């Protein structure tokens, strides 16, 4: 038997082999993918917003870990594990858009979980729209995110104008006749300004007298603003901004011998960093939170809000804030929508559009609270259902004080040591 080497035969076999592999690989690949739901996370894992970005990642990851312990998302009696893919937005909108496109094209994700900041979310929205990939945002809070009526984007946290408006009304109702006047200040930048405007709306709707409404540029010296507030002496001072403004306000007010009867702030006031940096001066300060661990909500995967907090603490070593909770709840929304969709992954463009429709029709109760997305108006596709909780810092602890169903302690008013 001759085993003579034939160059022609070798070339022919090589070409045939390569062709078979090239044609066969996608089939193998599809086969490997078809039993998984591929979820892309676009968030800021580096840059200025990496702290918040990593909070979102923790929230998303915790859900993925928990659902995978059960074997994955259940669709028509079958369980499909979740595989997570990450795209670093680097705290920049343009990088976020690039990362989203990479996740969709290269990693072929079926669904996206959204960025930490509203700016990056706005940049990623057109990408999710272009490729018809539903995106559930566990963090973006600016009302601008929803003004363009994004067909494929859904937001878990109510826009900041809704939360601050409602929280001021809750506070005014709780204080009754004890508070009659309020002043609102805020940084003249998108998120903070919207926060301040929400507070102003809440003041007007709750019948309080608005003594002043003042916006100031980021990085301003606050001594003039504090001096003005001191001379006006309102019952409530509401502040729209981030932690650095709150810290500066508290220290400037203290240095000018001014302590209002009530101070309410929004994002960051519940963070450990704020409480640590302001020390005992944070006592009595009020804040707004969409979620706290004491709320009476629950679901099948995470149990109660308190159970979720314990689980997150055991996994990450810190108690979750409402951003982490909202991100984990994003997974619950996907679970529910996929179950109602009733189609096994991978999902093509048409199926993803159906999935977006299923997400739009969400109406569930979770450990994070009720979830339902607005189908019209300026808050289109924003979850407008949660009622914000007014919290108060008491000896370094964040204590829910209003509304009544969430309250874990008395609202201290006026703050001891008030001017």
């Amino acid at each position, binding site marked *: 038997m001759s085993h003579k080497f034939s160059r022609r035969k070798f070339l022919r076999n090589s070409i045939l082999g390569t062709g078979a592999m090239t044609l066969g690989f996608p089939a193998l690949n599809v086969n490997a993918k078809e039993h998984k739901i591929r979820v892309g996370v676009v968030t800021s894992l580096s840059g200025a917003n990496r702290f918040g970005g990593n909070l979102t990642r923790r929230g998303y990851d915790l859900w993925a870990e928990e659902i995978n312990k059960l074997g994955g998302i259940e669709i028509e009696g079958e369980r499909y594990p979740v595989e997570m893919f990450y795209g670093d937005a680097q705290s920049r909108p343009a990088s976020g858009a690039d990362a989203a496109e990479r996740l969709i094209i290269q990693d072929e994700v079926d669904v996206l979980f959204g960025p930490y900041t509203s700016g990056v979310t706005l940049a990623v929205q057109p990408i999710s729209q272009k490729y018809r990939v539903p995106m559930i945002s566990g963090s973006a809070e600016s009302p601008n995110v929803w003004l363009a009526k994004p067909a494929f984007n859904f937001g878990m946290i109510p826009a900041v104008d809704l939360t601050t408006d409602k929280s001021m009304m809750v506070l005014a109702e709780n204080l009754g006749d004890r508070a009659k006047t309020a002043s609102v200040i805020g940084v003249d930048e998108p998120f903070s300004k919207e926060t301040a405007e929400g507070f102003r709306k809440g003041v007007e709707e709750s019948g309080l007298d608005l003594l002043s409404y003042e916006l100031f540029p980021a990085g301003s010296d606050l001594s003039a*603003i504090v001096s*003005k507030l001191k*001379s006006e002496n309102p019952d409530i001072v509401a502040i729209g901004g981030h932690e650095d403004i709150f810290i500066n306000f508290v*220290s400037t007010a203290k*240095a*000018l011998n001014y302590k209002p009867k009530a101070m309410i702030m929004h994002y960051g006031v519940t963070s450990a960093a704020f409480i640590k940096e302001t020390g005992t*001066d944070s006592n009595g300060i009020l804040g707004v939170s969409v979620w706290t661990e004491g709320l009476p909500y629950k679901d099948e995967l995470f149990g109660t809000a308190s159970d979720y907090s314990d689980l997150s603490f055991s996994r990450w070593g810190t108690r979750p804030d409402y951003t982490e909770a909202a991100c984990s709840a994003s997974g619950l929304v996907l679970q529910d929508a996929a179950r109602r969709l009733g189609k096994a992954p991978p999902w093509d463009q048409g199926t993803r559009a159906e999935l977006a429709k299923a997400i739009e029709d969400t109406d569930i109760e979770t450990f994070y609270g009720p979830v339902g997305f607005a189908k019209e108006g300026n808050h289109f596709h924003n979850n407008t259902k949660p009622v914000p909780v007014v919290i108060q810092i008491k000896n370094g602890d964040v204590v829910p004080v209003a509304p009544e169903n969430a309250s874990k302690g008395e609202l201290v008013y006026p703050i001891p040591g008030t001017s």
Partner: protein
Amino acid sequence: MDLFLQTLVNGILIGGILICLTIGFQLTFGVLHVIDFAVGGWTMLGGYTAYWLVTLAGIDPFISIFLVFALFLLIGRGLGPLIYHVRTSRYARPDLMALAFTFGIFLFMRGGALWLWSYNSRSVESVLSGQFLSLGPVTIPLMRLSAFVMALLFSLGLFILLYRSRFGMAVRALAQNHDHAGLMGVDVKRVSAWVYGIYTALTASAGVLIATVYSVNPSVGIRYTLFAFFVAVLAGLGSVGGVLVAGLALGLLEAYVATYIGARYSLLIVFGTLYLTLLVAPKGVLGRGI
């Protein structure tokens, strides 16, 4: 009337902070002819160093300011020859290269601060934090008052150094003409390096005070760079004396506009005034440099 007086005090004290921030910047421009983009970065690092010293070693900022001064004097002295080398380069546009070089240093500082201290704002506590002096209807925050006093001391010290010492004479000679100063026996490279060291030491010390009055985070640097630049331009680039007048004027303007017109317009009016002043007096309020 009470608010008017309080605003007057607020404005003077803001002016003190601006003077602290800018005085070293003026010196380095006057002598090295470098617009140092890293001025806000040195301020930020000074603040963070004080933060570390107070949290890790319990050293109050009023003591640590001397340590910060000494530390940054050495750092600046070490970096000075590099700045001098870039500024006197034979290649095209060394002035722009120096600007780009200091911008690079600034980015490095900012990235380093993010890595070391994360994005959260840090408060620097001092024995005077939250303390105040009441004079009738006017409240004077002691921390800001001490920053103002420090600004005066910085200025006085700098004037004594410049006008009452041989080193100061060499610095003034350099500011007038590098070549002539060199021909008269001044070691141009060495003096320039020390000037950069004094600048970084003054600016980082100002950062200690600023972090104690406000707080510090990695993003504050760019803000302080801009403020230093605007005060310096109004003062006349390179004019140490002009900083006193320009700093106080901008502080008072900011305070009165924020109180009586609206805080939202304070920067607009401050920068508008700056623009108009430069149209009338392009060399700054005193019309001369060092």
